[in-house]
């Protein structure tokens, strides 16, 4: 056991921190009500932020899972929207590295490597299939050497920018064993990008509805074998949960830093409010819970990089870190008092941005189900 970062991990951390502060931060200040700009997406793509986990031999940055999580945290410290956009794209890239054939990689992964597609998207959730992902209704019926895809998806992150989508659809029996994973082009006939959701937070990221109407997908666009879609999805989510946890951590660390400096400046009753134990307690609780979050995340990420099963650890990291982050962002608004409620101060955005982390990539309730199932095995 060695808790200190390696010099390589430190370098990656500094690289991400510099990028976040120099390139992402000015954009956040400028465009609070707009989507991430094309120029920032291009920059992220050019500097290989979208293929962090892809081996260097395949054109990526070749980071291990732990370094990857450090990058996500650094981005989220400055902009949660950027962080989730990068995280989801990397999740798809990672799935392709692990599950795609050589031809599939050439067709899709290469688009993320050379920037033809800035982002990628995952189409799993549907109107009536959220936590109960195994009940999804989008169908893919086989005719000859093609599948015909029909259905609707919601909450597709990055939808407005992605040139291709990883789509989960039913090819067989009811339940999770009848699901297959398809790679679908944006410009295929029958693919339509629907409404951009108007969200509480992460307002600069893209979240769309999509529909697939008689979309013809060649059978060589199936990832792994037919019926193995749920396996693909679960593998993606194990890593995705670490990303979301890392993102929540980053947002909350910035909230805490803002709370600390505000508490030292703001005077009431003739002294800085940092001198009141009521405020000190909030800061101490926040720092302790974030330290625990950080260690849970790093351990899960380290285990992933070692190829270990991380179902339990990834869920624990996500459950704990996102709930802690939400508490911290809430408490830091309390430290700011009325100013915390005003958009001029950063904690207002942190609070809105962080809330979703306990919802997507498995709600807190789903994490508890996963953890208790592992415990009671």
């Amino acid at each position: 056991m060695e808790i200190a970062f390696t010099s390589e991990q430190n370098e990656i951390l500094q690289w991400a921190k510099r990028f976040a502060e120099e390139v992402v931060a000015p954009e956040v200040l400028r465009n609070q009500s707009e989507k991430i700009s094309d120029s920032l997406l291009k920059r992220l793509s050019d500097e290989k932020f979208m293929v962090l986990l892809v081996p260097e031999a395949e054109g990526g940055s070749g980071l291990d899972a732990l370094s990857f999580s450090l990058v996500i945290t650094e981005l989220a410290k400055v902009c949660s929207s950027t962080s989730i956009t990068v995280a989801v794209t990397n999740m798809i890239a990672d799935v392709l590295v692990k599950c795609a054939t050589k031809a599939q990689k050439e067709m899709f992964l290469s688009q993320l490597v050379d920037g033809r597609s800035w982002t990628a998207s995952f189409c799993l959730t549907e109107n009536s299939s959220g936590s109960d992902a195994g009940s999804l209704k989008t169908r893919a019926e086989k005719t000859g050497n093609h599948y015909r895809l029909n259905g609707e998806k919601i909450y597709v992150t990055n939808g407005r920018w992605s040139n291709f989508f990883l789509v989960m659809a039913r090819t067989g029996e009811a339940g999770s064993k009848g699901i297959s994973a398809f790679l679908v082009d944006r410009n295929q006939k029958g693919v339509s990008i629907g409404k951009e959701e108007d969200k509480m937070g992460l307002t600069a990221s893209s979240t769309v509805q999509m529909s697939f109407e008689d979309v013809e997908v060649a059978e060589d666009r199936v990832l792994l074998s037919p019926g193995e879609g749920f396996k693909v999805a679960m593998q993606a989510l194990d890593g995705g949960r670490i990303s979301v946890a890392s993102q929540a951590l980053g947002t909350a660390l910035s909230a805490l830093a803002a709370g600390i400096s505000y508490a030292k400046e703001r005077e009431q009753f003739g002294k800085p409010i940092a001198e009141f134990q009521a405020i000190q307690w909030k800061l101490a609780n926040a720092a302790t819970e974030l330290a625990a979050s950080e260690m849970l995340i790093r351990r899960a990420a380290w285990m992933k990089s070692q190829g270990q099963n991380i179902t339990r650890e990834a869920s624990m990291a996500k459950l704990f870190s996102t709930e802690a982050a939400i508490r911290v962002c809430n408490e830091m608004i309390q430290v700011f008092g009325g100013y915390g409620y005003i958009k001029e101060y950063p904690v207002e955005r942190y609070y809105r941005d962080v809330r979703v982390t306990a919802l997507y990539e498995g709600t807190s309730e789903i994490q508890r189900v996963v953890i208790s199932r592992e415990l009671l095995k």
Partner: protein
Amino acid sequence: MEFLFTDEQLAVQKMAKDFAESKVKPLAAELDRDSRFPAELIEEMSALNLLGMCVPEEFGGAGMDMVAYVLALEEISKVCASTGVIMSVNNSLACEPIKTFGTQAQKEKYLTVLARGERLGCYALTEPNAGTDAANQQTRAEKKGDVYILNGTKQFITNGNEAEIAIVYASTNPAAKSKGISAFIVESNWRGYRVAKKEKKLGIRGSSCVQLVFDNLEVPAENILNAENDGYKVALSTLEVGRIGIAAQAIGIGAAALECSLSYVKEREQFGQPIANFQALQFMLADMATRLEAARVLTYRAADLKGRGKRTPVESSQAKLFASEMCMYNAWASVQLHGGYGYVEEYLPERLFRDAKICEIYEGTSEVQRLLIARNLLRKV
């Protein structure tokens, strides 16, 4: 960053687990019921090198790193929190300050016997009126020739009834407050050293907790630890290790609470099915396990850094604060999951619930940990 345990750490963990299961567990309920100190276990722990785990071999210790110590202490505390604290005090509070601040002669004379477990140690900082405000020491040490004369009363001294060597804090310059405190190595058989009162406690009843009274106790000047008036530094540094020990103890209790609850919910049937099938209880178990793991990683972090010679004022406090509150939650949840059975002596949660509480109090209350963490945050940024 690397989370793999070394072979040595795993071997120590297994050794401690085997010992805990075979020798400590069968005694635990009785030690609690009769408030009996497990003298027979001390000999065995000494033989297994569990009493001076991080002391170099040349001074009679096991020469282990601090993560190995944490793993072993968790295993012992998991079956008996009383035995856990006895071990923690000797390792963290008696051996560590002498290892870190002692002269060669002090190490040869005192550290060796403590680490081998030939004599047990205790740590006398707290006083009736100096708890959280530890710098407010009323015990006085006056220098006369080549001895110091100690007078005062120490409160809540764990292992105090059995300890033969005590690390004692006293004021050598009251006006200077924390900068006028000195630390001494004191032997219990010296004239003027008296165990005045044995406390009856809510939990950890197998360990002793006493009041010590010093009445013109003569301590040779060579027994001062670190320089005169430089004792508070010894106290703070020692507590950084001590808090890691208490965090490990809390993890042991918290792990026991989870383990007994997991087996109970699978057996207990209500409404025609095991209560493990109910989501309300599944979620409680998930929270227990998640908090337990969070406490573990925080404690490993502190232990790894401390073991590499770093100062860990924040890391130790965060580990101790979080682990002790996790421990209290897990103990509470284990009682709740056992229902009425959790309230009776025959089932483990009743003892765990009583034992758990002390972790939030000794070696700095939760409030002190928060104070220290906040102070550090506000200084840094």
